[in-house]
């Protein structure tokens, strides 16, 4: 039982790709804040299920926002 694969595979779609997906931009702080942890780190895509190409876009926009003091580098 312990090593048996689950019957239903759990699969989530990327929240940032698709037709009505929001635009990733460094000015859209409310969106970016969902993808950083409490301490200010960028969350890995295996937790947020963001696709590979969108994760790359997201991380570069978060870094732009950090330089302009819109998002924190660290938050202790």
């Amino acid at each position, binding site marked *: 039982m312990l090593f048996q694969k689950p019957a239903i595979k759990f699969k989530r779609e990327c929240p940032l790709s698709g037709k009505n997906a929001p635009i990733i931009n460094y000015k859209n702080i409310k969106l970016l804040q969902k993808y950083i942890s409490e301490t200010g780190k960028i969350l890995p895509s295996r937790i947020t299920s963001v696709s590979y190409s969108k994760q790359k876009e997201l991380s570069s926009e978060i870094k732009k926002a950090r*330089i*302009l*003091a819109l998002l924190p580098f660290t938050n202790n």
Partner: protein
Amino acid sequence: MNIYEHTCILSQNLNPKDLKEIRVKIETIIEKNQGKIEKVEDWGLRNLVYPIKKFKKGYYSNIFFSGSGTAVFELEKFERIDENVLRFLTFKVKEVPKENSELCLKEENK
């Protein structure tokens, strides 16, 4: 010709007259170097998430302009020397957005 987006943070201590002077100076530097200003946004006084040069607040301004690399070089050269500019960031964009961003001040608050 490329389109650039430029954002800078100006010091909190400036009075409205000096603030306008620096913003006009930035625009003249762009125009002197064969650049063309496409769009200007004023984000007003905002809290900085972390202190920069011991300041906790700053005036944000955002400019879209088309031009060559020399305009960017001359602009950043001026901003590095000026003490009242706390931070700046310039990067290439594909096109100028038609609508104002969420951070832009509404006309009632100006």
